[in-house]
C-alpha cells in the first residue's frame, strides 16, 4: 500500500530525512515514533505530496508520488498535527467541499458525513463556522473529512492531540475497523502506550534516519515499547 524507497529530503544543507525506506501493507497500522525534529512530519508531508523531495521514491498503491501525485492523493487521506482548516466555511460546507473534490455522490456523502459526525459527536455543530470550533472539534472535522472518501491509506500526524477520551477511543476503533477492511494506516505519535496497543508495525526515526522498522514484536521483544525505544535511542546515540 505504501512503499518508501531511500527517501532523502534536505532543507538547505541539513538533511531532514536521510535514506529512509519502509513498506506498509494493506490491513496494517504502522506507528512512526521519534523525538521532536527527528523528521516524522517531513516524511509524512513527502508521502502526501505536500513536500517535494530530492532523492528516493514513494509509492502509494503502486503509483509514484513524484510521477503521478494526483493518483496517489486519490488513494490517501492526510490529517496534519495542527488542523488548520478553512475557517470561513461551516463544518458541513468544508466536508461538502472535500466530497466534491473526491467526486463522491450526493447520497453517499450525506450518509458518510452523518455516520462519522454522529460517531465523533459533531453533528449538532456542523452548521457552525469552523472559526468557532475548538482545537478538538477541528481535529474531529479533519478526521471526518479524511474518512469520507474511504481512503486506502490514511496518514495521520499526531492524531490524538486535542481529542477527548471518547473521541480518542472511537478513533482507535475506527482505525482498526478500516484496517480490517483492507486500508493501511501510517501515523506519528509521541504516546508510546497507544502505539504499542494499536500498531502492527513500528518505525523509529532519529535525526532523519530510520533506526528501526519491523513488527511490534520484532521491535520491542518482551519489553515495553517505551523501554525498547530508549534502548534504540541509546544504541544509535
Amino acid at each position, binding site marked *: 500500500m505504501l512503499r518508501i524507497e531511500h527517501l532523502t529530503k534536505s*532543507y538547505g544543507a541539513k538533511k531532514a530525512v536521510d535514506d529512509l525506506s519502509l513498506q506498509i501493507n494493506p490491513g496494517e497500522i504502522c506507528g512512526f515514533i521519534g523525538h521532536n525534529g527527528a523528521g516524522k512530519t517531513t516524511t509524512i*508531508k513527502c508521502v*502526501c*505530496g*505536500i*513536500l*517535494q523531495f530530492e532523492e528516493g521514491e514513494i509509492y502509494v498503491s503502486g503509483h509514484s508520488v513524484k510521477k503521478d501525485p*494526483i*493518483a496517489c*492523493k*486519490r488513494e490517501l487521506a*492526510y490529517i*496534519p498535527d*495542527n488542523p*488548520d*482548516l*478553512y475557517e*470561513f*466555511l*461551516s463544518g*458541513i*460546507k468544508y466536508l*461538502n*467541499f*472535500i*466530497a*466534491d*473534490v*473526491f*467526486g*463522491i*455522490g*450526493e447520497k453517499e*456523502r*450525506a450518509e458518510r*458525513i*452523518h455516520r462519522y459526525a454522529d460517531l465523533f459527536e459533531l*453533528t*449538532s*455543530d*456542523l*452548521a*457552525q463556522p469552523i472559526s*468557532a470550533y475548538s482545537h478538538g472539534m477541528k481535529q474531529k472535522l479533519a478526521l471526518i473529512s479524511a474518512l469520507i472518501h474511504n481512503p486506502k491509506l490514511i496518514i495521520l500526524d499526531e492524531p490524538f492531540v486535542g481529542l477527548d477520551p471518547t473521541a480518542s477511543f472511537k478513533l482507535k476503533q475506527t482505525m482498526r475497523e478500516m484496517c480490517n477492511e483492507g486500508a493501511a494506516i501510517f501515523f506519528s505519535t509521541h504516546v508510546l502506550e497507544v502505539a504499542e496497543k494499536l500498531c502492527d508495525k513500528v518505525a523509529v526515526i532519529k535525526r532523519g534516519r530510520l533506526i528501526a522498522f519491523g513488527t511490534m514484536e520484532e521491535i520491542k521483544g518482551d519489553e515495553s515499547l517505551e523501554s525498547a525505544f530508549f534502548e534504540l535511542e541509546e544504541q544509535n546515540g
Partner: protein
Amino acid sequence: MGSFRPVFYVTFRSLIATMFPRYRRSDPQSKRRVILYALLFAYVFITIVGGEAALFYSLAKSLGPAGYGWLYFALVGALVIALCIVGELFLTHAQLFAAKDNEQLLSLPVRPGVVLFARIASLLVLDYIFTLIVAAPAAVMWIAANSIGAAGAVFLVLAVIMLPLPAMGVSILIAWILSAVFSRLRGSNILKLLVYLLFFAAYFYVVSNLNEYIRTLISRGAEIAEAFRRGAFPLYHLGLAVTEGDAVSFFIFAVCALAPFVIMTALLSSRFLKIATTNRGARKVAYRQKRLKASGARTAFVKKELRLFFSIPAYILNGGLGALFSIVVAVLLVVRRDIVFQMFQTSPDALPFGAPTVAALMLCLFSALSLVSAASVSIEGNTLWIARSLPVSTYDILLAKVASHSLVCGVPTLIGAIICAVAFGPGIIGLLALIITPLALVVTMGFAGVVINLRHPRLDWVNPVQPVKQGAAVLISMLAGAALILVPGMLYVFLLHRIMDVDFMIFLTGVVYIGISILLAMHLKDKGARLYEGLGG
C-alpha cells in the same frame, strides 16, 4: 513601568508588523521589498506634505492679516483630530476589542491595565505621526507667512502633544460601539464593509471638495469663525492660546482635550478584562440536515475561493473596490456625468472624444484596480496543506483563483459596460472597446495577480488583512495594472493617434490583453505550478 516596557514593545511590534513588510537581513528579496516600500512611503509623504504646505500657506496668508489667526490653528486642530480618528478607528477596534493575543498577554504576570495602556500607547505613537504630518507643515507655513510669540510657540508644542488624546477618546468610543454591534450580528461582514465604505466615501467626498471648502473659508471667514467659536469652543481656545499666547485659553483647551481621553480610558480600563476574555461569538447555528449539492472539483475550488473572498471585508474592499466602482461610475456616467468629471477634475469639453469612449476608459481604469487574485495565494496561509494534499492538479487550483477573480470583478464590469452601451449606443468598434477591453483587462489582472503573488507570497500572517492590504504582491499588482493602462495610453497619445481612432486603439489593447492572458496562463501552468508546489514546506 517595568512590565509596561516589554508589553508595549510586543504590542507595538505586532501593530507595525500589520503595516510594513518584515525585514530579514539574510533575504535580499526582503531588503528590496523594504526599499520599495520606503520609496513609496517617501513619495506619498512628500506628495501629501507638499500639498498641505501649499494649502496652509494660502490660508495663513489670508487668515493671519485678517485677524483670524486663531481660526487657522483651530482648523489645524480639527484636521489633526479628524485624521487621527479616520486613520486609526479600525486599528483601534482591532487592537483593543478584537486582538487575538489578549489571552496570551493576560496569562503573563502583568496587570490587565498594563496590557490596555500598552495597546493605547502603541496606537498613540501612530497618532503622533498623523499629527506631525498635519501640524508640522501648518506651523512652518504660519511662521513663513506671519509670526508667533514665545508663549504661543510653547502652547503650540503642548497642543500638538495633546491633540491625539481627544481623537483617541472618540476612536475608543466608536470602536466600542462597533465591537458591540459586530459581535452580536450574523453576517456582520456586510455591516463592517458598509462602515468601511461609509468612511471611504466621506473621506473621498471631503478630499474632492477641499478646494471648494478653502475658497468658502476665505470668502466667508467671519461667518465660519463665528460658527467655530460657538460650536467648537475648545478649538477656538486652542487658536487663541497659540496666536495670543493666552494661558487661560490653553487651560480650557487642555481640559477639553484630556476629558474624553481620561473618561474613555477609565471606562475601558474598568471593563478591559471582561472585554478581552469574553467570547461573544454569534448565536449558535442549529444544524438541519439538507440535501448536499455535489459539484465538480474545479467548481468546488472556485466556490471556495469566492467564499473566502466574501468572508473578509478588508479583502472585498481592497480587491473588489474597482469592480464596485465600475457599476457606480457607469450609473453616474449615465445619470450625473458632471459628478464623474468633477471627481477626475476635468470637464466633458476638455476631452477630445465622446461618452462611450470615456466609459470604456473608466471601466478599464477600474478593471486595473481589481486586485482579488493578488492576495489569493498568500491568503491561504497555514491552510495551504489542504489544497496541496487533495487530488487536484496545481494548475486547476491556480485557475480557480483566476476564475474567482474574474467572476468577482468581471460581472460588475460587464454590468457597467452594458449600462453604458445601452445609454450611449456606441458603434460596433466602440461597443467592442466598451465590452471586450475592460473584461479582458480583468482576466489579465487575474492571471497577473496570481503570478505575482506566487513570486511574492506571504503565508506567515497573523491577521488576514496583512496579505490583503500590505502584501508586496498587491502593491506590485497595482503597479502592473497602472502599467497596463499607461503604456497603451502613452503609445496612443505620442505615436498612434495619427493612424487610428481611439475606439479602435482601445479595442486593439483588449486583444493585446487577451494575448497577455494566454501567455500568463502558460506561465502559470508550468513555472507557476512549480512555485506553488514549492510553497508547501
